[in-house]
């Protein structure tokens, strides 16, 4: 298994609090579930990998390249895209504009070229729009017709889909999903799981996702990492970790 992402003693302090405590793990091309009780450092871990926080210690390697000190936008260009726990689409922009934002790192037309001539810019834009609509249609065909509508008219589940689609449109090697099913009902959760399965089959993108719904974890995760108080306490297939005594204690208390 080729290593895609590798972290070595990854640590971050917020004042006296150690949110992520020397986490060392590696993953290949797989779907990795990240679970743990509240405040165990799951989201912080994603924030570290996507460059929103910079670590106080340790190292992150992505495709053999050290990305520990890279800025957020450089990490996106390197091929790591993410979504957020609460929906963070640009609400004043349309569906299509949100999707085009996802392609920002893939566009090359610089500002002075835009000023001088619209031709190259239009050509690029045209290609981008068809890519965006293709990815969007992959999730929900209805969204293609609603491409010029503002985000606040779109139902929650479709916003989730748009957010995942926005991360996916630039064809990243690693997709970080922070609770993709948060706030959705059972049926909607099943739909998102379905979408994720299809995405995985089609693009073979590696995914790290945080989830509280064990049903979702058992369906799509190839491997699970359990965090508690910033430390990895268990690692393995869902069956393996569900037998672990330590995991039960972390979740349910002693």
């Amino acid at each position, binding site marked *: 298994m080729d290593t895609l992402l590798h972290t070595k003693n990854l640590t971050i302090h917020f004042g006296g609090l150690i949110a992520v405590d020397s986490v060392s793990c590696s993953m290949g091309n797989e779907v990795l579930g990240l679970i743990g009780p509240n405040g165990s450092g799951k989201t912080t871990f994603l924030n570290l990998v*996507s*460059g*929103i926080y910079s670590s106080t210690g340790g190292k992150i390697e992505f495709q053999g390249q050290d990305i520990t000190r890279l*800025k*957020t*936008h450089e990490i*996106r*260009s390197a091929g790591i*895209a*993410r979504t*957020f726990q609460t929906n*963070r*689409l*640009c*609400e*004043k*922009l*349309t569906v*299509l*504009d949100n999707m*085009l*934002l*996802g392609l*920002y*790192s*893939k*566009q090359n*037309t610089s*500002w002075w070229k*835009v*000023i001088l001539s*619209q031709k190259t*810019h*239009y050509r690029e*834009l*045209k290609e981008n*729009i*068809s890519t965006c*609509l293709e990815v969007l249609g992959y999730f929900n065909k209805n969204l*293609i017709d609603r491409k*010029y509508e*503002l985000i606040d008219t779109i139902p929650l589940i479709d916003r989730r889909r748009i957010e995942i689609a*926005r991360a996916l449109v*630039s064809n990243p090697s690693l997709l970080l999903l922070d609770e993709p099913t948060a706030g959705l009902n059972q049926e909607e959760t099943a739909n998102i799981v379905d979408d994720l399965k299809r995405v995985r089959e089609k693009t073979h993108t590696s995914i790290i996702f945080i989830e509280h719904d064990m049903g979702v974890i058992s369906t799509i995760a190839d491997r699970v990492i359990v965090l508690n108080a910033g430390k990895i306490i268990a690692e393995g297939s869902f069956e393996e970790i569900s037998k672990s005594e330590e995991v039960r204690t972390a979740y349910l208390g002693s």
Partner: protein
Amino acid sequence: MTENKIYTHKIEKLLPSLGVVVFFAALAVAITGSLWSTLIILIGMTGLLIYGEKHGQVDRAYIRVEERRSSTLTVLIICIVLLPFILKGNSYFLHIAVMAGIYAIVALGLNFQIGSMGQVNFAPAAMFGVGAYTSAMVTVRLGASPWIGLIAAMIVTAGMGIVFGFPALKTRGFYFSLVTIALQTIFILLVVNTEWLGGPNGIPGIPAFSLFGQSLKKSGMLLGTPIPYQMNYIYLTFTLLLLLIVISKRLYSSRIGLAWNAIEEDEIVASTQGINLTKVKLLSFSIGSVFAGIAGSLYAHYTSFIGVEDFDFNKSLIFICMVLLGGMDNPIGVTIGAIMLTVIDEKLRIFADYRMLMYSIILIVVLVVRSQGLLPKRNRKYPLGEEN
């Protein structure tokens, strides 16, 4: 029935050009008429836009203009060419039109920050001043051509834009606004206390632009009637204004404009989409400042005298009002806002000391009635890829 349809179709085709003509006619009436006619035009314009927005006509108007872009542009250029004659060749009226054009350029530049990025910059007048002073110094002290002054103003303001934009990288929202207020104050104090920059006395005797050996400050004769020199400046200013509107529109419709909008909503999300915040923010400030620099240079070589009071904090507030009134993130809206406010400002001179009071009341009323500004931002519609 069918005949009727064809008839409406023909009218529809003419509508954009007709709109431009009506706008220029209204502008001419506003400039040449009394305060009341100006106010009636402003009220009419606001009412028309509110009505149009309710019935989806504004969106249709945009589509129509897009469809008939070249003819609309031709009519627009003809109207600009005819503007001095519509204004009866009166030098005062022409002066108002020139100032409206110059201020519109500053407002367009400011719009990159306020409209697109939601960062309220309180120092546009300082930037306008940097442009004017640079151009004036280069021509008066070094004896260079005003055109060199214009280029120098653009270069210096681009650099100053980066200096002004730098706090925007570290601060956000109110804090950023505070920093720009400080920068505006620093500019005024620096100019007043520097002998070399003319101090409180200003800089007199700034040469005018010249073209093909002809000074633009020379009154011309046309068809036997004398035309005041302001006409030349109308053509110069409005040509530049048109060019800068085109540049603005191109930037807005590109990925840069989209990135600015994303930064306004959520910087973290923007950066996770691969947007280099530092670069894109500084770009907004630099380009905005270059616009103000161009306007400043035009102003200096038009009035031939600049004093520090032309670039004070009140001016900054007026520029911000132009963007707010015209409609954020929409170059056409901002231009209309700037032109309307400049004209109203001139017309309010009859109130003498109460001028700013009346000005504020008008602003408040318009913004209460139409809070998003006259012509606010439109959702981007791409004319391509429709087949999907």
